[in-house]
């Protein structure tokens, strides 16, 4: 017991938390009981221990009664451990001579038997009193924060976050997997409910990213490895070869014209496969960076080696470089914002809607490109079979609110379906039918937009569409696709013949989200979206300090919410950098070199790569700057040679012994 040789003098404080605790637990009985425990010098109850008078009471008692250990029985340490540690510190006591007992979440809130809950609270207090005697004085450690931020993902979330941070004067590394930033938003035609042109509001921001002196933009690149901790993450970024020198290329497109393929021949990813591109291409005219990329999967030079490479010949800046190889960039950043977006639901998973079977069934994202004036048809709505649609059916909730696929609501489909209905009707004059389960339009101006669409004569049919079929029953259905649906408002089954079907696909976690999650050591919900630290009060933080999330990687959301979240994440990152240092809790682990046998069992287990094997001593060693105190190595050390501050064996076992001593 490290207490300068003094006997422990423990003060125990029982919080009423209004009626939260006192309503179920006899706090006075717990208090009287605490007074009988060994080394307890005094015990008190108070209505709100966390209040200023509550804290002042502890501080005064420490001085007056020479207390050297404090136990507070109240709520979760997640809420107020720091509060009470602060009180100890102000009283001149080491803040870690403190143990918090959660008699609210662990007792009063989960029991209704007053006697039993009171008895349980006594057990908890007894255990804490036993444990706190073994607490040792500890100190928090400080580390400097690297003055730069990594933003992963260059969609509207990543772009917004990067610009906010860069504008505050901090450096940003923006890493994007695709050849251009812009993300999904760059593919959209208009945005709801204002019908702003998506490109008109997005592309200025993309250009700003490109020109910003504080932003290093790496497109066609992916984060490969992350180590370190808040304030100092070490990141390796893999830059895929695009076979074009980005610094030399000005995007004149001469090379594209010169390509041996006179006509574009390959599926154009940006246009959702509705158009064609050449092996050397720029995804879209406003791409950032405005440079071309060579796809080695389709380029003759790479496939056969026999191409004369007119692209290289024609480039007067000599930007084409077939020998370019993958590069690894290593950077150190103080904070990370993950904005890796979403993946649209794969409509072929629901064959009953005929996507991939009937050529005139489209996904909503395809239609975004189809109605776009720079899309594959220059905005002309022509179906794959060449016909101009006179009737169009839009099926909602494809891959959303569906136990067979995805249970969750994708939040944006109702609104974008209405938007597409408007645009399709505007472009074609066709009859547009909406097949919806519920119309979900909560948002500024959203319900008004719905009203407007009703006035525009869009047909609303409430019912989950059963199937899309080309099996016709009447002459008027001939040659059309028939949507079968139970119209639940009129209570009969309808067959609606249309020329074109639009599937409003939902949002899913992005491709590779799981690897991203593992790399940055964050959690995800069971759907696979990244988990925020608290659903209400910490929506952009994660369980890993210094790693923030924004946009659809956290869950489906629309552009305004995404932008707001990106701003919040940026503010968090800037605040962290501006503070300049991080303090690390002292509950870290260390290895006693006299005890370690060098068995290496712990080394692969550390999620933070904090354990190294010292080849000289032949023993393992923990870098305390990297240790976050998860305790994995401590529990698994087969020879008990790893010790964790605040979780030492005698502390834990004394606690267990006492909490069970009545059993």
């Amino acid at each position, binding site marked *: 017991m490290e207490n300068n040789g003094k006997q422990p003098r423990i003060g125990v404080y029982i919080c009423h938390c209004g009626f939260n605790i006192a309503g179920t637990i006899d706090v006075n009985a717990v208090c009287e009981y605490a007074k009988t425990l060994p080394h307890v010098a005094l015990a008190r109850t108070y209505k709100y221990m966390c209040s200023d008078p509550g804290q002042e009471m502890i501080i005064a008692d420490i001085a007056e009664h020479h207390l050297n250990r404090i136990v507070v029985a109240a709520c979760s340490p997640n809420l107020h451990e720091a509060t009470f540690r602060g009180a100890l510190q102000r009283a001149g006591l080491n803040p870690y001579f403190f143990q918090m007992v959660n008699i609210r979440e662990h007792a009063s809130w989960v029991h209704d038997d007053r006697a039993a809950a009171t008895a349980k609270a006594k057990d908890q207090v007894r255990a804490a009193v036993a444990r706190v005697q073994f607490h040792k004085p500890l100190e928090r450690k400080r580390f400097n924060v690297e003055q730069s931020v990594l933003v992963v993902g260059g969609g509207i979330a990543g772009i917004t976050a990067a610009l906010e941070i860069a504008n505050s004067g901090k450096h940003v590394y923006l890493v994007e997997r695709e050849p251009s930033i812009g993300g999904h938003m760059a593919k959209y035609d208009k945005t709801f409910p204002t019908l702003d042109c998506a490109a008109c509001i997005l592309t200025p921001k993309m250009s700003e990213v490109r020109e910003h002196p504080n932003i290093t933009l790496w497109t066609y690149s992916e984060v490969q490895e992350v180590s370190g901790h808040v304030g100092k993450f070490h990141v390796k970024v893999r830059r895929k070869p695009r076979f074009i020198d980005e610094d030399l290329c000005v995007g004149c497109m001469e090379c594209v014209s010169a390509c041996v393929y006179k006509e574009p021949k390959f599926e154009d990813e940006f246009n959702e496969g509705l158009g064609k591109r050449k092996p050397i291409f720029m995804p879209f005219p406003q791409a950032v960076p405005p440079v071309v990329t060579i796809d080695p999967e389709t380029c003759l030079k790479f496939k056969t080696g026999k191409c004369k490479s007119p692209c290289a010949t024609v480039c007067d800046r000599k930007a084409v470089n077939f020998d370019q190889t993958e590069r690894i960039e290593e950077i150190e950043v103080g904070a990370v914002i993950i904005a890796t977006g979403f993946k649209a639901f794969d409509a072929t998973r629901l064959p009953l809607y005929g996507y991939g079977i009937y050529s005139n069934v489209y996904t909503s994202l395809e239609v975004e490109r189809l109605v776009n004036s720079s899309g594959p048809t220059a905005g002309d709505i022509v179906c794959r079979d060449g016909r101009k649609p006179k009737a169009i059916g839009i099926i909602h909730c494809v891959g959303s609110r569906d136990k067979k696929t995805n249970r969750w609501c994708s939040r944006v489909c109702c609104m974008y379906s209405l938007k597409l209905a408007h645009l399709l009707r505007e472009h074609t004059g066709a009859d547009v039918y909406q097949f919806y389960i519920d119309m979900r339009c909560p948002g500024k101006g959203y319900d008004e937009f719905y009203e407007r669409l009703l006035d525009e004569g869009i047909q609303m049919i409430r019912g989950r569409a059963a199937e899309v079929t080309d099996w016709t029953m009447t002459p008027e259905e001939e040659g059309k696709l028939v949507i079968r649906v139970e119209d639940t408002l009129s209570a009969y089954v309808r067959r609606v013949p249309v020329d074109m079907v639009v599937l409003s696909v939902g949002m899913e976690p992005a491709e590779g989200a799981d690897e991203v999650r593992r790399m940055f050591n964050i959690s995800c919900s069971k759907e696979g979206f990244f988990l925020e630290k608290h659903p209400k009060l910490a929506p952009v933080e994660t369980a890993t300090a210094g790693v923030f999330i924004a946009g659809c990687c956290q869950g489906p959301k629309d552009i305004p919410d995404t932008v707001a979240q990106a701003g919040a994440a940026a503010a968090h990152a800037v605040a962290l950098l501006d503070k300049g240092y991080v303090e690390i809790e002292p509950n870290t682990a260390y290895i006693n070199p006299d005890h370690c046998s060098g068995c290496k069992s712990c080394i692969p287990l550390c999620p933070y790569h904090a354990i190294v094997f010292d080849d000289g001593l032949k023993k393992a060693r923990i870098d305390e700057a990297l240790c976050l105190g998860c305790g994995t190595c401590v*529990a698994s050390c*087969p020879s008990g040679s790893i010790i964790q501050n605040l979780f030492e064996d005698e502390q834990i076992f004394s606690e267990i012994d006492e909490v069970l001593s009545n059993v």
Partner: protein
Amino acid sequence: MPEKPKIAFYWCASCGGCEESVVDLAESILDVVAAVDIVFWPVAMDFKVKDVEAMPDKSILATMINGAIRTSEQEEIAHLLRRKSQYIIAYGSCAHLGGVPALANQFSREHILEYVYRKAPSVTNPAGTVPQPNWKDDGHQVTLPEFRHVVRALDQVIDVDYYLPGCAPSPKLLAAAVQALLKGELPPKGSVLAPDVALCDECPRKESKPTEVSFAEFKRPHEVIADPNLCFLAQGLICMGPATRSGCGAACITGNMPCTGCYGPPSRIKDQGAKILSSLSANVAAEDEKEIERILSGIPDPVGTFYRYGLARSLLRRRVDLKGNS
């Protein structure tokens, strides 16, 4: 000539290997004999219990007791020797931790007697006779020690001063312990007289263990011909070394067999089996439950593997539904 210090040896539930280890001192046993008087050693010398009873209390300097405690006789002699001795040394794995005999704590006394005397394939016992503590035969009262419900380590019966670990303890450790006794240079009471660091520290194969070990399957020694130079764990063979005290000179490893844990855990560990289990299972290379089950099926007898010597002194100790309290 001053009287030589008195030393005693006794055996309880044990195999006799510990006694062998005393003899394994070879010629240095003569030095021991020259320095001390052996006053009680049933396996080698003819003494009776009444001889011990007649000795004054604390007249024996040290008694080495090997074997676990299973019967009333062992309990009785242990108490007697405790009274007569200044130091009691738990000698070998069984006295130290319960040892192999304590694996019987997985079964009830009735089950054991039933199996051993009636059901085992090698038994011929048409009358179904099972030993009884009291029996009248031809007018004579015959008694046998009572077979208790559980097997206990020595310190679960009497106060123990020191422990010499191992199955059996190495002669080197014994010689060192006797020297320490004679010189009066003893460590704090309760110490285990072996280094307090795990076996890997002195393992000749330590260098060969990769930093990132993960287990895709577990094999048992009879299923493979082990590489004589590579860490056993890296070969998928369970080695208790990381959770076991050193001091044996890595004897089994040198014989190309993995450590089975007989020296027990370092002082910092309450439960050797739980610790190695926690360490090994944390490094199982599996992504899903099925895969975990497949890999763990390579350990058909986890208690016998991880608690081979330590069950009585582990947190598990015994099956909970064994009747009575010994």
